[in-house]
């Protein structure tokens, strides 16, 4: 069969997928760009061309800068905690002990739990009047009075981060575990014979094997965390006093609650650009790590 026919046939086979993708992703993205230069409302008026007005308005608003820093804080802290906890759990699951297979199996549970159910569960646990956290801490005499964990700006974001970590660190653990299982046993044995301590063995023998897969997990988790919407919406709706408002929630409010499609679109594109920059920076880093590890 000739190469041209092969290529033509491949395109024909991809056509349905590509057509649908253009319809549900390509076109909406282009239209978001168009809308971002207009003052269109969500319903009704088509809007007039307003140039970069939406962008300057959004970028200079204090809402945006505050939301950006909240989102960054959420992403950095939760992803860092997930990485550390995930690697620690993987190191544990790579040891030999009775019940290991069962424990490995349990790790799938938080991952499989729907995000909204997870958010609801933690919302109930944090409940200011009847929540399990308040009950447990009071009964252990760690706090005197019940607190509104999600109702106070000082604790709401931290409470969200804990809930997010609980759901996501097991996935990092499973990815890290798969990488650990690929470390040849004779290499760790040789390092032991050479007198390398636990830390040095981890740093120089095991970490190079973990680096690649962990970088990929880090990239994917960071992108996810930066786009976060569901868990925050269900637990706090961005409150109290907007202290847990993420960029995605800000876009939702602008475009759907206030029905300002134009400025909402410009904000959405700013978020997209930030995520893209993040992803490209990371991809470069991943390539470097992968290069140095092998």
């Amino acid at each position: 069969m000739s190469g041209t026919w092969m290529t033509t046939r491949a395109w024909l086979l991809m056509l349905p997928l590509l057509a649908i993708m253009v319809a549900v992703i390509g076109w909406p993205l282009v239209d978001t760009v168009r809308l971002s230069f207009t003052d269109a409302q969500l319903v009704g008026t088509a809007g007039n061309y307003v140039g970069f007005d939406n962008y300057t308005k959004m970028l200079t608003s204090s809402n945006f800068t505050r939301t950006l820093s909240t989102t960054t804080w959420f992403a950095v802290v939760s992803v860092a905690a997930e990485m550390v906890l995930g690697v620690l759990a993987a190191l544990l699951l790579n040891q030999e002990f009775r019940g290991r297979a069962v424990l490995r199996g349990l790790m799938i549970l938080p991952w499989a739990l729907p995000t909204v159910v997870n958010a609801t569960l933690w919302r109930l646990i944090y409940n200011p009047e009847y929540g399990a956290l308040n009950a447990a801490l009071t009964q252990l005499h760690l706090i005197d009075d019940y607190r509104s964990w999600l109702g106070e700006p000082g604790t709401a974001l931290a409470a969200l981060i804990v809930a997010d970590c609980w759901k996501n660190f097991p996935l990092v653990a499973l990815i890290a575990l798969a990488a650990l299982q690929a470390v040849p046993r004779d290499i760790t044995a040789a390092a032991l014979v050479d007198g390398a301590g636990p830390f040095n063995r981890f740093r120089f023998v095991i970490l190079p094997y973990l680096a690649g897969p962990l970088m990929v997990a880090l990239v994917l988790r960071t992108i996810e965390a930066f786009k976060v919407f569901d868990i925050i919406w269900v637990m706090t709706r961005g409150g109290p006093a907007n202290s847990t408002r993420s960029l995605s929630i800000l876009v939702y409010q602008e475009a759907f609650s206030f029905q300002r499609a134009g400025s909402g679109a410009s904000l959405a594109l700013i978020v997209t650009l930030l995520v893209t920059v993040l992803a490209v920076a990371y991809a470069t880093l991943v390539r470097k790590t992968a290069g140095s590890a092998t």
Partner: protein
Amino acid sequence: MERKNPVFTVFVYACAILLASVILAPLAWLFVMSISPAADLAAKPLRWWPQAADFSRYAQLLSTAENSAGAAFTASLRNSLEVAGMATLAAVVLAVPAGWAVSRTPSVGWSLSMVIATYMLPPVALSVPLYMGLSWLGLLNNVFGLALIYLTILAPFTTWLMKSGFDSIPREIEAAAMIDGAGLFQTWRIITLPLAAPVVATSALFAVLLAWDEFFYALLFTSDQRAKTLTVAIADLAGGRVSDYGLIATAGVLAALPPVLIGLVMQRALISGLTSGGVKG
């Protein structure tokens, strides 16, 4: 080999118990809440185990009596099943030929890379035109419309999984069938698809899980029992003025059951799918 130091062994078991408790405690509490009488849940000090297990909320939510909490719940359950089923079916139908094409003809692979790169896009970047588009088509608050939108998430992912699945099927087997005179679709039917069946099944399961989990588009594009999915129904319950927290927990348990069972039963396949993503990138 690691020396079997007894202190180290105790440490390992202590950590294992801690990890198991961290994972299980919140889940166990969700279940306990669902079977505790409302009075126990409001008691101070909190009762950690019900005096008498009360499964009536399950019956209440699964009943279809009109205008009950059950009617809203079962409607959303049906919508979730319909949307996940339709979106998964469509995603697999699109992904099989596309994944095969990219696997056998790497020169068109860049188009799949572009499709996968859309993963970076936050759904908010598409949501306004999608809302206007669905509204124009009359597909707002409609399970077909929602299933169509879910393809933005499901199709790239399943295609990518299918592509790596086809990569592991030697093309020589297909070539042999074609030399014997089988056409492309015949070769697929006789050779490729039977060999790829496990990958197709895994991709489909992933797609179902993704659709079942989806919240943002469902929140935006559905408004009542005709199309509201489970995730939206549960968020409504959690955010509403429901005074019985046990009922919210029960809805959570029921919504979590299918994906958790899929997760446990398909563990091996799911983990290898997840980690191959992590390892191969």
